[in-house]
């Protein structure tokens, strides 16, 4: 197993009209050989990218805000714009300035962490969205879930918290038990799952699409297939641009939902 194959995730000498089938991308494109192993622990490429994400996010904000000045430099200005986008655009919008201020650092960290993890998808050499491994969005969704549950019961007490989660409302009358069961199921069980999967699936599908057109461009590069390869390559470029957009949108949506869940937890009974 050479390093090239690990990096490219498909066989490089397979072309159309050579009697070689199309090496379609699939689930195996999301599996990586460990870079190194310590005991039973395998350190692979997504983990490396996750660690690099940490370094980059902290590095950027350290450079921007480490020695923050009242009259900002260029980098600080960019950092402030990003910070303000999450703070005003997401947190203050949902939670208000007074109650939201506490959650700003968490949401800012979450947004930039998710965004950079998504962004790896189109960074040359890396070319893999870390969030297309379900474990990463699941870890983040888990943190939000725990936080949201904790806040619900802390704010409303045990019974009040249950009522808040299940949308308990006496005016519903006969359908109340049904509504409570549905709400409980939807909020407590499904919500963290959809929260994680929404991000995961978008990045997973996006990566598959780019991979598909990239591999096809290479595979078709033989005889008459070169014309098709051109079309496929153009699609690769278009999809890369599209992914750039989707990555930011998904990071935004992930943080927006996290904020909304917390807003729901802090709100009075509805």
């Amino acid at each position: 197993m050479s390093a090239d194959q690990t990096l490219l995730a498909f066989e490089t000498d397979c072309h159309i009209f050579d009697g070689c089938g199309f090496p379609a991308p699939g689930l195996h494109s999301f599996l990586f050989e460990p870079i190194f192993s310590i005991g039973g622990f395998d350190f692979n490429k997504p983990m490396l990218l996750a660690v690099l994400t940490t370094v980059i996010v902290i590095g950027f904000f350290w450079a921007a805000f480490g020695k923050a000045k009242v009259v900002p430099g260029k980098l600080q200005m960019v950092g402030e714009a990003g910070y303000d986008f999450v703070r005003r655009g997401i947190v203050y919008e949902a939670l208000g300035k007074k109650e939201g201020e506490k959650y700003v650092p968490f949401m800012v960290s979450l947004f930039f962490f998710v965004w950079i993890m998504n962004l790896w998808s189109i960074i040359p050499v890396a070319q893999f969205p870390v969030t297309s491994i379900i474990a990463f969005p699941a870890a983040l969704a888990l943190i939000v879930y725990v936080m949201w549950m904790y806040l619900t019961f802390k704010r409303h007490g045990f019974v009040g918290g249950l009522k808040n989660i299940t949308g308990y409302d006496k005016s519903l009358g006969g359908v109340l038990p049904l509504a409570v069961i549905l709400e409980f199921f939807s909020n407590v069980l499904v919500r963290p799952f959809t929260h994680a999967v929404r991000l995961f699936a978008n990045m997973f599908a996006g990566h598959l699409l780019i991979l598909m057109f990239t591999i096809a461009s290479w595979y078709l590069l033989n005889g008459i297939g070169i014309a098709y390869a051109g079309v496929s390559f153009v699609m690769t470029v278009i999809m890369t641009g599209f992914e750039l957009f989707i990555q930011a949108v998904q990071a935004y949506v992930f943080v927006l939902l996290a904020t909304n869940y917390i807003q729901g937890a802090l709100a009075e009974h509805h």
Partner: protein
Amino acid sequence: MNALLASEGELENPLLPPIPELVIGLIAFAIVFFFLGKKLLPNINKVLDERRAAIQGGMEKAAAAQTEAQQVLEDYRAQLADARHEAARLRQEAQEQGVALIAEMRSEGQRQREEIIAAGHAQIEADRKAAAATLRQDVGQLAIDLAGRIVGESLADSARQSRTIDRFLDALEDKSADVTKAEATR
């Protein structure tokens, strides 16, 4: 077939999170959250507050300066109005004084003129009296000498002399008064 696929063996369900990745993800995020939450975001918040304070302070300073400028302008205007009043008052006073001075000088001139006229009159009267006295004596003497020579009679006696002179002069005056009267009626 794909070499990777072969080497990995069974494909896992992509929705089942592998534990090592989950742990790495949690740790990675925790580190990011720690640095941003503990150090970097409080840092920028402090600076943003400072900036807001600086902008607000600047605005307050500007407002204070404006108020002061307004105050100074009003003071200046008030002083200007005072000065104008004062100038008008002084002018008025000067005018009044001038009028009074002119009147005084006029009356003084009048008085001096009258004094001079009076003195002139007195002088003339005295001169006339002296001239009349001298004339009376000279004319008397002349008349006596003449009469003495004509009559040959000595009129040494002074009493007689003066009586004679007076008689003569009275006659003379009567005559001249008649002449004057005649002139006046004419």
